Structure formats: structure tokens, C-alpha cells
């Protein structure tokens, strides 16, 4: 009986994903084992999950056809490369890894990263060819760079209470092995509820990308 349920769930999931126009995957930092940094007497994993769930709800309200998937549940433990495997198998359109830290400076900062292990190498690789997992990001390199600039422009234009820094290309561990455009945001919050203000800006930025993508 559980096997029948499993196959039913799989069929439903597959059919849903195939009809969705855009799939966004949100990765809240931390898991059941990894608490992350201390943020105002709580842990990073709790704040990032709240933030991801908030964004998921907001996007679902604004664009019901967009599928927003979270990489983990509150009690789940994530293995190395599990998220990359999950994202590649679902063939998501966009992957955002959310990280939050306690900002000690007077003006909070928001950093944006994309993955790069080869500063001098910027070709776009074919999806059908064989390559190592640290070069997977080069498959959608041009889209990654294009969206990265759009995100950066939007975050810069709306930087009223924070300073936006980036986008930086470096070996960001949470993004390794992901084929589709993937970014990490490291957000500094001055008060425990500051993440909501960032989330609203992130939702607007994501909706801008999704709308533009659907148009093309």
C-alpha cells in the first residue's frame, strides 16, 4: 500500500512540475544537524527557514503558476551535494541559497554570490557532455550572469536600509554542482525581524525575473 501511495505522489509531482512554467528552489541555510550562526539569541537555520517559507507564500499568492520548492523541512538533515542533486533532477529554473547573520555594524549588508572555480574560464558547456561536478555551473553560465546582473541592479536600486555588495563569483559551497542559475544571499540583520524587510525586496526581485522569463 505505501508503494502505491509513493507512485501516486510521484505521478502527481511529475505532472505538476511538467505543467509549471517556472520552478524556483529556495535553500534555507542549516539543517537539523547544522545550526548555523547565532542570530539574536536564535540560530540561523530557524530564521532562514522562516524567510524561505515567507517568500514561498508571497510568490504563491502573487504567481500561483510558479512552483516554489524548499530544500528541507525543519527536522531534515541534508547530506553533501543532496541539494544539487535535488535541483538538477527537478530541473529547476532558479536556485537561491539564503544565509542570514547578525549584523554588528550600523548599516546592515547584503552580499550576493554565484559559483565559480575557474576565474579565467567562462565558456558555456553543453548539458550532454561529461564534466566534473565543480564545472556544472558553466552549463547555464550566460543565463546565470544575465540574471545575476538583473538581481544586483534591483537590490542596488532598493538599498534603502542596507548596503548591497556583489555579485561575487567564488567557490561558494552551497552552490556547487548546480546546473541551473544559482545564487547565494548572505543577509545581515540588525533586529530579529529584519529578514521580513529583505524578503519583500527578494520577492519583488524574483517576480521581476520570473515575469521577464515568462515573457521570453
Amino acid at each position, binding site marked *: 500500500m505505501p508503494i502505491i501511495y509513493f507512485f501516486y505522489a510521484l505521478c502527481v509531482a511529475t505532472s505538476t512540475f511538467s505543467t509549471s512554467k517556472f520552478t524556483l528552489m529556495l535553500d534555507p*541555510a542549516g539543517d537539523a544537524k*547544522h545550526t*548555523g*550562526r*547565532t542570530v539574536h539569541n536564535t540560530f540561523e537555520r530557524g530564521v532562514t527557514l522562516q524567510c524561505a517559507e515567507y517568500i514561498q507564500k508571497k510568490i504563491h499568492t502573487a504567481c500561483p503558476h510558479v512552483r516554489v520548492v524548499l530544500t528541507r523541512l525543519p527536522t531534515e538533515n541534508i547530506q553533501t551535494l543532496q541539494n544539487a542533486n535535488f535541483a538538477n533532477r527537478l530541473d529547476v529554473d532558479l536556485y537561491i541559497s539564503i*544565509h542570514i*547573520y*547578525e549584523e554588528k555594524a550600523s548599516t546592515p*549588508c547584503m*552580499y550576493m*554570490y554565484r559559483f*565559480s*572555480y575557474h*576565474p579565467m574560464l567562462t565558456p558555456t558547456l553543453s548539458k550532454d557532455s561529461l564534466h566534473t561536478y*565543480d564545472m556544472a555551473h558553466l552549463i547555464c553560465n550566460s543565463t546565470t550572469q544575465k540574471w545575476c546582473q538583473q538581481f544586483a541592479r534591483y537590490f542596488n536600486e532598493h538599498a534603502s536600509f542596507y548596503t548591497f*555588495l556583489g555579485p*561575487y*563569483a*567564488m*567557490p*561558494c*559551497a*552551497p552552490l*556547487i554542482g548546480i546546473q541551473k542559475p544559482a545564487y*547565494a544571499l*548572505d543577509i*545581515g540583520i540588525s533586529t530579529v525581524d529584519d529578514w521580513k524587510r529583505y524578503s519583500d525586496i527578494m520577492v519583488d526581485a524574483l517576480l521581476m525575473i520570473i515575469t521577464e522569463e515568462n515573457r521570453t
Partner: protein
Amino acid sequence: MKITNIYLISGITCMLGMCMFAYFNQWIIIRLPFTSSSDTYQYSSATNIKKKQITLFFWKHNRWQQESTEIVWHNEKNAQLYHLVTAWLSLLEDESLIQGEIFLQSVLISASSQEAYLSFDRDFLPQQDPLFNKWMLIESLLKTISYNGIGITHVRFLIQHTPYVDYHLDFSNAWPIGGFLSS
């Protein structure tokens, strides 16, 4: 055979046995004049040691800071790197950029002389800080190595001789000496 001869032969063989035992346990070391010895190596190494003015870099108050100091400079790359990175770690500790005392356990240079393996005794990245600060710490180490002309192209980071695993930064591959800041 006379009893005295028996005592004499026994005494000589006993002495020989003791000498052999001492030799095999390296209590007695025989050094021939025509072979190179560790002392001569140490002497030749010692003559190649000199003082050198080096520049150390670190990231503080949102900009690069640098400090010059003098260290002993060997001919071998691994010894140069060892002293350079140890000086850099001391500076970081003085500037309170790292928590506690961090030791560089060992430095190895690959057969091609282009890649260095740095093994630290424990994690030295500030885990509570933004990812940017952790990254800049690594960039400052790479900048220090590059600026002082060690002549390597890549660095691999290890903790206790095992690959460095960090939640934010990936060290599964070697980092280029130029870092990633320019990209």
C-alpha cells in the same frame, strides 16, 4: 684448549656482541669521512638562511591593510611558506581576526613545485562572521603568498592533514594564488 683461552674467546665474542647490539640500536653511529652526513646538510642549509623583509596582508575595516616584518628566509619553498604563513597567523591573532592560537602543522609542495598543501591544526575561519569575512581571510593569505614571491600557483587547505570542510567555502579543489576577488 686451555681454560684461559676459553675465557678470552668468550670475553671477545661478548664484547663484539655488545658492540653489534649498540650499532644496530644506533647507540654507536659510524660516520665515514667520504659520505655526506646530516651535519654537512644542516651546515649547507644554515648558510642559505637569511633575513628577509616580507609584507603581510589582511582585510580590516573594509579595506586591505598591510604590515612589513622580517623573517628567516630559507632556500626551500616549504620552509619559506611555513615561516611566512606562521608570521601571517601571528599577525591575525594580534589583530583579533582569529580566535586563539592557530598552528600551521605542515607544508608540502607538490612534485611540480606549483601547488602547496597547507595543513592547520584547527579551523581558523570566523564562523560567526559574514561569509565575505571568511572569504577575505583566505584571499589575504593568498595575496600574502603571491606578493612575497614564493613561486607557486595553487594552494590546498587542510585541517589535521584532511581536506578542509567549511559550510560556506569549498576547498575540495586547490585555490589559485590570485584568488577569486578579481572575478
